[in-house]
């Protein structure tokens, strides 16, 4: 780096211009550009501090364990949503697929007497099949993901309701499918296997995105689909694979949901579509594709749950939680726009 002899000397060459000291805003900008998960992490920590000050119960291990359990369903789903959004797509049907998958698992086990170890893969298959429909419509018929998944949202919701016949299915205690609700104690934290499955999803998807060719290709396609095509990437296959791998995350989310509900409930998880998008957006992943990390989505899912729990503990009208999340979404997208505005 060139060091100016006199701080106030005007830059004279292009070299000088390029190497001039960064303003504080530019430094922040550069850091956020490199670390998309940093700004949501700061929000999470700040929220945690404020809620802990307002009610000391907030940071008790029992309560933090609950928050983790509450975030596990949307957190798992957000992994799938992140993959799709990284390709500059969006999946509005993701929650509907999860509810359908969870009902298939629970109903097969309870109503049809299928052993849980077989009902589970059946539910996983349903999630994959649904995501194959989404992915093929996007890549083969070339429909915009928003429209495709808006349509399949209706379709999967309707199939779920027809299949469920308005009934909630509660599994008997000890069912294999309820394994995702088993308690796992780590120190004074009482997590569930569902929470650990979610964390596993983040580790695996984080690794795949960062260290494999597939992951880098996903970013490339999301960032500039034409450049990727010209570079010889099988663009359609990569996009399709994002929807399919998202199917796995959906299936995990479905299993976690079965654990939380204690079975299958067509009314549970109805808001998960938008909640997963909210988590991803708050987590700093760009809706324009190509930028973001899964870790951000995990933080995003936690932020939403921390506001929900923290405001409840503070005895504040739950409407303010909805309001706060809305403000965060706008703020997160604004930060994203700002980061994208200047290419260093």
């Amino acid at each position, binding site marked *: 780096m060139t060091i100016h002899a006199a701080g106030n000397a005007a830059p004279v060459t292009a070299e000088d211009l390029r190497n001039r000291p960064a303003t504080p805003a530019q430094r922040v900008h550069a850091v956020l550009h490199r670390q998309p998960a940093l700004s949501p992490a700061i929000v999470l920590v700040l929220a945690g501090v404020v809620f802990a000050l307002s*009610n000391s*119960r*907030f940071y*008790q291990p*029992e*309560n933090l364990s*609950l928050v983790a*359990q*509450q975030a596990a*369903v949307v957190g798992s789903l957000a992994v799938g949503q992140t993959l799709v959004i990284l390709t500059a797509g969006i999946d509005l049907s993701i929650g509907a697929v999860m509810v359908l998958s969870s009902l298939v698992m629970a109903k097969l086990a309870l109503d049809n007497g299928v052993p849980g170890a077989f009902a589970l893969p059946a539910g996983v298959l349903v999630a994959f099949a649904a995501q194959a429909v989404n992915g093929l419509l996007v890549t083969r018929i070339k429909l915009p993901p928003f429209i495709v998944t*808006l349509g399949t*949202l*209706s*379709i999967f*919701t*309707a199939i779920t*309701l027809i299949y*469920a*016949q*308005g*009934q*909630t299915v*509660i599994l008997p205690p000890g069912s294999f499918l309820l394994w995702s*609700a088993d*308690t796992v104690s780590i120190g004074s934290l009482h997590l569930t296997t569902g929470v650990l499955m979610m964390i596993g999803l983040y580790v695996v998807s984080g690794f795949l995105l960062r260290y494999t060719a597939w992951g880098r290709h996903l970013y490339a396609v999301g960032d500039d689909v034409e450049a990727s095509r010209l570079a010889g990437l099988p663009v359609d296959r990569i996009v399709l694979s994002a929807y399919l791998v998202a199917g796995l995350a959906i299936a995990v989310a479905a299993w976690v*949901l079965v654990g*939380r*509900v*204690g*079975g299958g*409930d*067509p*009314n*549970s*998880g*109805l*808001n998960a579509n*938008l909640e997963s998008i909210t988590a991803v957006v708050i987590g700093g992943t760009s809706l324009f594709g190509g930028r973001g990390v899964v870790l951000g989505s995990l933080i995003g899912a936690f932020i939403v749950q921390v506001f*929900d*729990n923290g405001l*409840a*503990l503070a*005895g504040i*009208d*739950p*409407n303010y939680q*909805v309001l706060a999340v809305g403000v965060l979404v706008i703020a997160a997208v604004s930060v994203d726009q700002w980061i994208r505005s200047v290419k260093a």
Partner: protein
Amino acid sequence: MAVVATAGFATACSSSGSASGGGTGSVGVALILKTLTNPYFVAMEKDAKAEAAKDDVTLTVAAGTTDGDTQTQITAIDNAIARGDKGILITTNGDAVNAALKQAESAGLFVIALDTAPSPPSVADITYATDNTAAGRLDGQYAAASLKGETAVIAMLDLYNNQVVSVDIDRDHGFLEGMGIDPGSTTENAQEAKNGDYTGGSGGTYTIACHQPTQGAVDGGRTAMENCLSANPGINVVYAINEPAAEGAYAALKAAGKTDIPIYAIDGSCAGLKLVASGEFASDAVQYPGKMAGLGVDSIAKLARGGSKPSVTNGLSFYNTGTALVANTPLAGVTSETPAQGSSACWGS
């Protein structure tokens, strides 16, 4: 959010037209439900179909896609007028359907509101409903009586955030009134004093630990109960807006190792009564959705064939299809049925 998914769920038999009127032949009736996601309304559909088969009624069923979806309902009302139906049975999703219902009435259709009176009630020719306040009150009285003077720490697991849905307010306020606590408002939840004395049972002091929305679903009930317990681990009374919310609350209590905390639910499905029998719910206020729908179909069939108009229950603005409390242990001062007795009239499977 609003998604067109279940618009116009037509029943198997919907071809034979009935526009000719007169005293014989099949009578067309439209059943327009809030949603088909809730077993409560599915039970209405089932019993309405059974009654329709008996009365030679051509029943067409439609439902909103979500609670609050008035557009689908308005379309269904328009369709009923166009089809020449003799009457409409509707559980309205909101006041937006009022104009369409008025239009139906001026076209000669008899409009029966089911489950909840529309606002204003005059929008329908008559309402067949359960008194939701009475249902909540039974639960509240039972809760107060079982406390035997102990201090009550109450979790209120409501339906929504927005606090303007009548069933939400009626059940919530009914429960508080049953416990002998002034709800503090006639139009909003969570307006009662947070601490004070309850006068139900042998009386005592109370604290409201929380009012949390559940969306009437299991996962919402669970999250709400978890947050309530975190806020106040001393909770010893749980009111739940409906059975799914109560099931979620039970899951949260179970995970916290507090299965002895009583949950007071409302709905009265067959599945719910089993949960009373097994001790997961302390009590369940039973309603009869199927009876409302069956009676509605029957009334329109009779009216179309020259019978007289149905009339309201004495002292109420609607025809009360009744409510009863189901609990394992009868308590002094509260009338209750056992789960076995209640199951003769329960709904769902």
